[in-house]
């Protein structure tokens, strides 16, 4: 039972299979491109938690970030909540609106969540899940970024990061203000 070079080649034959399986880690089978990209965003009207009404059509001409969240979505929604609030504060003076759509939740839990993260951007429930169905929401959280013409420019699955948000918002605004700088400015003002 000696190991010759020729014999060594036999075990090596399993390597291609292993490499192929390892390649699988680089891909995400859930990352299927959304058919809604570049299409007109489905219109919706939202009754906000503070009683106001919000209609997507009225926001035409602004960059709109629509975020689907729920208070039970641990940890992704908890990770992105401060990011969304910070982006709202950074961009609220520059034609950007962030809209939170609360999905499959109880009002009490949703309000508690909003208090915890000091949400100041418009948020409202989607009691029958109609909006999330129109947007093809598969899991929570998902974030859609709409351009000034009301088309869906970008869809993000999972917790959204500050970099992703500012990159797409800046692109759609056609300018390059740094979110970090804006936030600092905001803090100085208060």
């Amino acid at each position, binding site marked *: *039972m000696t*190991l010759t070079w020729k*014999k060594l080649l*036999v*075990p090596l*034959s*399993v390597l291609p*299979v*292993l490499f*192929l*399986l*390892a*390649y*699988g*880690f680089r*891909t*995400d*089978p*859930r990352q*299927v491109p959304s058919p809604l990209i570049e299409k007109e965003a489905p219109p919706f009207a939202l009754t906000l938690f503070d009683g106001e009404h919000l209609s997507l059509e009225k926001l035409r001409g602004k960059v709109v970030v629509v975020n689907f969240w*729920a208070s*039970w979505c641990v940890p992704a929604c908890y990770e992105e909540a401060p990011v969304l609030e910070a982006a709202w504060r950074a961009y609220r003076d520059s034609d950007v609106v962030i809209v939170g759509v609360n*999905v*499959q939740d*109880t009002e009490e839990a949703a309000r508690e969540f909003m208090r915890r993260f000091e949400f100041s951007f418009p948020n409202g429930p989607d009691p029958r*899940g109609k909006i*999330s169905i129109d947007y093809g*929401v598969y899991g929570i959280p998902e974030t859609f970024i709409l351009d000034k013409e009301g088309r869906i420019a970008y869809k993000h699955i999972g917790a959204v990061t500050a970099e992703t948000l500012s990159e797409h918002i800046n692109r759609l605004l056609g300018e390059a203000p740094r979110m970090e700088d804006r936030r600092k400015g905001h803090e100085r003002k208060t």
Partner: protein
Amino acid sequence: MTADLGNIALWIALVVAVYGAVAAIVGHRQGRPALLDSAYNGVLVHCALVTMALLSLEYALITSDFSIQYVVFNSSRNYPVWYKIAGLWGALEGSLLLWAWMQAVLAALVVLLYWRKHLAFLPYVIAVLMGISAFFVLVMLIPANPFTQHFPVPLEGRGLNPLLEDTSMLVHPLLLYSGYVGFTVPYAFAMAALITGRLSAEWLYITRRWAVTAWMFLTAGIIYGGWWSYHVLGWGGYWAWDPVENASFMPWLAGTAYIHSVMTQEKRGMLKVWNLALISLTFALVIFGTFLTRSGILTSVHAFTQGAVGYFFLALLAVILLSTVTLLTLRADQLKTEGTVDSVLSRESAFLFNNLLLITFCFTLFLGTIFPLLAEAVRGVKVSVGAPYFNYVAGPIALGLLFLMGVGPVIPWRGGSWGGLGRNLLGPGVVGLAAGATAFVLGIRGPSVVATYAVAVFVAAIAVQEYYRGIRARRKTAGEGPLRALGQLFARNRRRYGGLVVHLGVALLAIGIASSSTFQVQREQMLKKGEALEAGSYRVRFDGITGSRGPTHVKVQGIFTVFNDRHEAGQMTPALRFYPRQQEPIAEVDYWIGFWEDLYVILGSFDREGNWAVIKVMVNPMVSWIWMGGAIMVLGTLLALWPARFRSAAVRGERS
């Protein structure tokens, strides 16, 4: 507190497992019996420690201890105690703990059963088993710790995935895991045989029962999974060629090939390398399946959440494949076959063809399962391989296997004459052809269905003929009554006659699958109150909607009155269950199971006032044959496994 206990138990279990593996080999190599004994004891201690970890998590689940994250995500205060217990295998971390525990119990069983026996093999067997155990414990300690703490402690848990809230949750995973884990024992002995160079059939004899038992659990687990899918998922089917289903079916195919081909080595000293390769393949496929379900590289309705666990399982798979293939290559010279296939018309050639088909089947499944990955790697496109591909390739192979299953048991070893074979096959062949012709006359035209009926009936007829002949022979020679003769047949050749029962079960299963997949009737319609829908001989009338509150959900039931051939047959109440944390409601099917056909009703959507409802009605022919076939397969395996001594003692007792 509970979490600390669990973690500490796991850490010590890891150390003990590694110690056991090393001590077994060192003790054996250096001829130190005391060290070897301590390795044996190590296996038992490891088992006790993993049991402690398992009980810790169960305790936390039962007492709703939400300081442990796993309990938060997989349990709820509202659950009945059974679901709390089943939460253990409801998600990744806990299922690994269950697996590790079964692995530990198995190793302990091996040590207790073979204490001071098979001394040439056992040190290596212990080393392999403890190596596998150490791996599972390591995975739980690093990427998938079931005892991770959760802060702040919530008041209520999130509960299991609602689809898992079913009594099947208490059965199916346990059966399946028992099958998976069971194959590690024959694999460990195969490795021991390769390492020590003791390559006679000894390791086969020792592990025969282990392999057949594992096969039985895997069979039962897969078929029970089909039943779960059928009565819970509400799409009217039992098998979807989902990657995870394939992941359980591939080791089954390889394992089936193995338990057949070992007979060739026992009787003729042939296929030695092949048998070692087959059991290794079976085990590698078990780990491959675990990797698939837990790595997130493919989408599947059954997949667990992903994470670093995938890298660990891929590493294990790499170690298994590389080490096994290297060992096989090194030992290839010593694995020269003793016998040769003397004739095409021999039992050994039938087994060869059977193996060829089973492995082709397995490879086809493997290819279809990983093809999306391959396509993306090579061409960068997303493709999916669905049921049509699998149905297309599986049909002919399955039919070929079915045919061999009939012929195999009646061809003698070493070869028989055409005349002898003709005598054995004539009767069953005629019966099978007659069944096919009857089906044709009754108006059944699909060639694959008619062929399946003919071959399945042929297989069943062979089994019946062999029983009849055996009983007749015993009545002549021993003058026994028919029942006693039947008992004696089993007592004297349990493997053969148990095996024939299994074949009979497969024949029923084949008929059930062919019928239900070909002749399903399906109707979907919106019904106003009082309106009815017709499907087959049934009329289903919509009478209204009622609501009720379950422990974890709100349930809306549709009330339907069913008429069969104009006679009122009863009421059916399919429902939708609404969970506060699920986007989509979950359908609760209502079904009537019958010998010839099942009526299966699904509520699609409804009006809150109860004025209308959308329903889907299916008439699924002969699905129950699948469950009966599965039960008979398990029964046959049990008959084949029945301990010899016990049996003959009973026979002696009868006589005295």
